[in-house]
C-alpha cells in the first residue's frame, strides 16, 4: 500500500486519471440533461463508466506488470523461501490494489459531485457492491495475465493489448450510445461492458434484479479467473 503510493506514476494513473478525463469531457459537453442518455447528462453517465476504466487499468496493467516484474527481479523468490503462503501474498496484494482502486473511485465521484453536481439515484451500498464485484473479477484476470507472462515486458504487452480495445469498445470511455450498432454488438462479448452496464445501472438506481446477466458474467469471470490464476501463479 505504502509502496503503491511511492510509485508516483502508478498512483497518478489510478487516482488522478479518471477525474482528469471527467474534467476534460465535462468541459466539452457539460452536464445538461440530454434525451440521448434518457434525460441524464454526459457526466451522470461518465462517472459510473469511468469506474470501469479505473478497474481495468489496475487489473490489466497495474497488477500484471507489478507482479511479473517482482517475479523477474527475484522478489517473489525471496518471499517464497519464508513460511508465507501464496494465498496470503495474493490476498494482501489484492487488498492493497482494492483500496487504491477505491480511492480512485472516490476521487472521481468527488470531482463529479463538486464540479458538475453529478446526479446519483442509486444506493451507495449497491454501487459499492457492484464496484467490488467488478474489481475483484478483473484483478483475478490480472493475476492470470501475470501468471501467463514470462516477463514484465510481456505482461505489459498482454495487458495493454487486452485493455485498450476493451476501454474503447465497452463504453467505459465513450458511452455505448454514441458508438455504431456494429461496435455495440461486439461490446456484448467484452467483459468490461458488463462492468460499465452494471455500474451505470446501479448508479441510476436500477436494481440488481435487472442486472442478473452482468452479475452472472462477472461472478463467472471472478470464479474462473481465480481458479486459473491460482493454478498458474508462479513464484519464479
Amino acid at each position, binding site marked *: 500500500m*505504502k*509502496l503503491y503510493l*511511492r*510509485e508516483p506514476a502508478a498512483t497518478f494513473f489510478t487516482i488522478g486519471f479518471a477525474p482528469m478525463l471527467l474534467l476534460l469531457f465535462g468541459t466539452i459537453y457539460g452536464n445538461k440533461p440530454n434525451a440521448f442518455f434518457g434525460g441524464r447528462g454526459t457526466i451522470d453517465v461518465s462517472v459510473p463508466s469511468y469506474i470501469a476504466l479505473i478497474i481495468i487499468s489496475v487489473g490489466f496493467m497495474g497488477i500484471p506488470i507489478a507482479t511479473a516484474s*517482482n517475479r523477474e*527481479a*527475484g*522478489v517473489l*523468490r*525471496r*518471499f*517464497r*523461501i*519464508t*513460511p*508465507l*503462503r501464496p494465498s496470503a501474498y495474493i490476498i494482501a496484494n489484492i487488498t492493497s490494489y482494492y483500496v487504491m482502486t477505491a480511492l480512485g473511485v472516490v476521487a472521481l465521484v468527488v470531482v463529479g459531485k463538486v464540479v458538475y453536481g453529478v446526479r446519483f439515484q442509486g444506493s451507495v451500498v449497491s454501487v459499492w457492491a457492484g464496484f467490488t464485484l467488478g474489481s475483484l473479477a478483473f484483478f483475478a484476470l490480472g493475476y492470470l495475465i501475470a501468471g501467463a507472462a514470462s516477463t514484465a515486458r510481456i505482461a505489459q504487452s498482454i495487458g495493454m493489448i487486452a485493455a485498450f480495445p476493451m476501454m474503447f469498445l465497452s463504453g467505459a470511455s465513450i458511452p455505448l450510445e454514441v458508438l455504431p450498432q456494429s461496435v455495440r454488438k461486439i461490446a456484448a462479448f467484452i467483459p468490461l461492458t458488463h462492468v460499465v452496464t452494471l455500474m451505470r445501472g446501479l448508479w441510476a438506481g436500477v436494481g440488481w434484479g435487472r442486472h442478473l446477466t452482468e452479475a452472472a458474467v462477472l461472478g463467472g469471470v471472478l470464479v474462473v479467473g481465480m481458479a486459473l490464476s491460482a493454478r498458474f501463479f508462479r513464484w519464479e
Partner: protein
Amino acid sequence: MNAIVTENLRKHYGDVRAVDGVSFEVRTGEIFGMVGPNGAGKTTTIECLEGLRHPSEGRLAVLGLDPHGQGYELRERIGVQLQESSLPDRLKVREVLDLFAAFYRRSLDWRPILGDLGLTDKMRAPFAKLSGGQKQRLFIALALINDPEVVFLDELTTGLDPQARRAMWDLVKGIRDKGKTVFLTTHYMEEAEELCDRVAIIDHGRIVALDAPRNLIGSLGAENRVVFFADGDINLASLRAIPGATRVEGSGGRVVVFGRDDDLVVRVVMALAAAKVRFRDLRTEQPNLEDVFLALTGKEMRD
C-alpha cells in the same frame, strides 16, 4: 546429530545431470561449505535442500524434515540467503524487516541484528539506495530474523570487494559461534579454506572430496615453496644442500625451492645471506585448496 542428511541426491534437467548422486552429512553447529566451479551443481544442491527445487532422486532431510513435503514447517526453522533475489526498490530497510518478521511464528527483534551487521544507520534507506554489500547484509539479516537453526548462504560474497568479503567471513563465523549450523556454497577456494570447518569439493555434479580443509590439503602431500628473484648468478647446488629442501628450480633469475619443512624459508634466507646473493620479492607459498582441486580434477579452479 546431523543437521542435514543428503543421500544420493540427483537432479536432472532433461539430459543435463546438474547433480549426479551426491551424499553428505552436515553436523550440527559446523560451517559446511560446498565449493566448486560455476555450474558444478552447488546452487542446485542448496536449492533442493531449501525446498525450492524438487530432486529427481535421492533422500534429503534438513532438521529431520523433508524440504519438499514439509516445506512450510522447515522454513520456520531455516534462514536462507539466495544467490539471486531482490526486494521492491522503494521498500525501506526497517519496513523490509518488519514485513519479513511478520511471516514467521517466532521472530527476533531485528534491531540488534541490524546493529551486528552495521546497518543501523541505513534503517530508513530504501532498498534501491543500498550498495551491493549493504544489500547482501540485509539479506543476511532476513536469513537470521527467525532465529533459524540452519542458515543457507549461496555465493554470499560473489561480487563483493575483498574488504567487504573479509567482513562477511567474520559475520558467518559469528553466526556459527551463536550455535547455528551454516551451509554455504562458494566458488572461492580461499573462502572455503578460511571459513569452513568441512568442505565438499564438487565438480560436474559429483563430490570429489570431503573433509576439513587442512586434512584435504595435508592429504595432497604437497610441499611448501619458497619463491624469490635472484640478482646475478646463483649457485643452485648450494640451495639443494639446504636441509629439508627436496627440489630446486631456477629459470631467468626466478628460483623456487620446494620442501616440507616449516623452517624452510629461514634456511633459504640464511643460505642466500651466507652466499652474499642479492634477492628480491621473496615469498612462501603453501599448498591450498586450489592445489587440492587441481590435483583431483586436473584443472584450474579459476573461471
